[in-house]
């Protein structure tokens, strides 16, 4: 399928300049939006049924509607570009290959929210993304699309990028606000929600990069036409990331509602030669794993929830029959135990204990009872912390050990350490000089 909306300028270096982007129809939606009533714009996004692309799938228009009435003091739009969920690589190309599309979405959203200041919080590792967005912002200011009187209207807006510094937890929106204010990235207790009390204590809306990139298309083509590109309650197009053991890993823009099997087979080229798919993570590493028999599911928020998993960030990780799922899960618990911010005991201790037990199993010293022990630790984690990082670690542990229990038992009974891929026996020296 050809690129639809979000990726239409990918690979075209001209789109990096404001003139090039405009020549391809860019900033027309902004012109249209500025002639509308801000409240009508919020309604338009509501009617389009746009759901947050960061992972939660919450209605963007409804979220925008949570902002209180104006009181003459600052209110903020914050863009969450702290892409870090393992398997996810969609926001980086959106910023690097079409920065003006995101900027146009930011300006329209800020106008709809009556916010005159926006910050783009970008992962510190994404140096190229920061440079591209800074340059787009500079061009837009020079052209009068940012600053005082945007496009000659009464609306004023300043936008700047803000670099993160390497912490997965800052993708959680209140941890992101803490980080943006210059503190450790530890999530805040809610309520109050950011729409009431967010950045610098002021009403704030936080949206994902891809979410905001959808906005110019919704305004440009109209809510109904955009919604019709997807399936019911899951309107528009969606960026899907496919990585791991497939022939052609990549990010693909498709209409919402393609099946996971079609995505893997038709877009990502299917499994590697001579291999069979064994397990698939459908929505980023925190989403419960699916077996090879479960991949005829539709890739939208509701269908995956019904299938007992989550669309999350639409990051598909494929594992084939050469892979040890025990080692794969151990890789994930290493990630979560490293990234836990340490604020809540169930998460700080739970992720660490899950990883310690799995390390013992991986090194050939596990016991069958460890599988039940891990599951009882998961029960003490899910829903018992300020944010969902604890759940994000527990979900893969629960689903891997339940759906692939025979493989875990076989591994434990062997009393050996096996390689992640290739079924070779390894000496029990930990990889990467650390926990992996």
């Amino acid at each position, binding site marked *: 399928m050809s690129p639809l909306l979000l990726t239409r300028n990918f690979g075209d270096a001209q789109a990096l300049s404001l003139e090039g982007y405009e020549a391809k129809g860019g900033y027309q939606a902004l012109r249209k939006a500025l002639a509308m009533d801000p409240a009508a714009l919020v309604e338009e996004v509501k009617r389009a049924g746009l759901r947050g692309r960061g992972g939660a799938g919450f209605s963007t228009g409804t979220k925008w509607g949570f902002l209180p009435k104006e009181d003459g003091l600052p209110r903020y739009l914050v863009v969450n570009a702290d892409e870090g969920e393992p398997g996810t690589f969609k926001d980086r190309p959106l910023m690097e290959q079409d920065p003006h599309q995101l900027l146009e979405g930011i300006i329209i959203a800020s106008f709809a929210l009556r916010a005159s200041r926006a910050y783009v919080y970008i992962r*510190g590792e994404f140096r190229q993304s920061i440079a591209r967005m800074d340059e787009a912002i500079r061009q837009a200011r020079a052209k009068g699309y940012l600053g005082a009187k945007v496009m000659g209207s009464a609306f004023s807006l300043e936008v700047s990028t803000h*670099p993160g510094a390497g912490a997965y937890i800052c993708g959680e929106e209140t941890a992101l606000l803490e980080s943006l204010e210059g503190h450790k990235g530890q999530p805040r207790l809610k309520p109050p929600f950011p729409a009431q009390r967010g950045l610098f204590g002021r009403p704030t809306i936080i949206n994902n990069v891809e979410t905001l990139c959808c906005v110019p298309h919704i305004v440009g083509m109209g809510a109904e036409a955009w919604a019709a590109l997807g399936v019911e309650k899951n309107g528009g197009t969606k960026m899907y990331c496919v990585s*791991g053991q497939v022939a052609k890993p990549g990010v693909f823009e498709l209409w919402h509602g393609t099946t996971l099997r079609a995505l893997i087979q038709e877009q990502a080229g299917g499994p590697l030669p001579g291999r069979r798919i064994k397990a698939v993570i459908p929505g980023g590493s925190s989403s419960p794993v699916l077996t090879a028999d479960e991949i005829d599911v539709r890739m939208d928020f509701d269908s995956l929830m019904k299938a007992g998993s989550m669309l999350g960030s639409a990051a598909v990780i494929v594992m084939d029959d050469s892979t040890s799922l025990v080692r794969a899960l151990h890789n994930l618990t290493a990630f979560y135990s490293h990234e836990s911010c340490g604020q809540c005991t169930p998460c700080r201790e739970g992720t660490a204990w899950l990883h310690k037990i799995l390390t013992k199993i991986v090194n050939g010293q596990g016991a069958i009872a460890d599988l039940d022990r891990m599951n009882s630790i998961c029960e003490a984690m899910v829903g018992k912390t300020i944010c969902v990082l604890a759940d994000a670690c527990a979900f893969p542990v629960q689903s891997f050990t339940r759906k692939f229990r025979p493989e875990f038992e076989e591994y434990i009974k062997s009393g050996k350490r096996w390689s992640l891929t290739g079924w070779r026996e390894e000496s029990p020296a930990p990889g990467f000089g650390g926990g992996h």
Partner: protein
Amino acid sequence: MTQLDAAMKSRFDQVRALYPEAQAAVIPLLHLMQESTGKADLDAQRAVSEYLGVPLVKVHEVVSFYTLFDEKPRGRHHIMVCKTLSCALRGSQPVFDALVRELGIQPGQVTADGAFSIEAVECLGACDMGAAIQVGDRLHGQMDEEKTLRLLKELKDRGGRS
């Protein structure tokens, strides 16, 4: 008082002007210090603290929380190897092992000539490029042992800083 030269002072002023509260500038300013000196050590932290009028402990806390800040100097080419699942499935361990063997250093160490340091990092958000590594602001994808050794040679020949 840690002295900032005029050019650095002017960049600090530009960053500070972006925020209504001083503390918010801590992370961007630490990045500036680390980019220019190769580390975010106590001197760098003190410079940020004194410039912003924010207690040193609040700056130090940030440095200790975030993985991108290093109090010890890094190599001129700091090589980050992604160790998370998608890259691991595509052979990041052999890439990492080749670097350790070839450079003769472990993570956290710098080669005797100051040229290289290595770090195994969590997901770089380049999972379609697995096994992916990042040197400075450049990503290198589909790495294997052979390509890694070739890249090392290129970096050695080029010299400078990534």
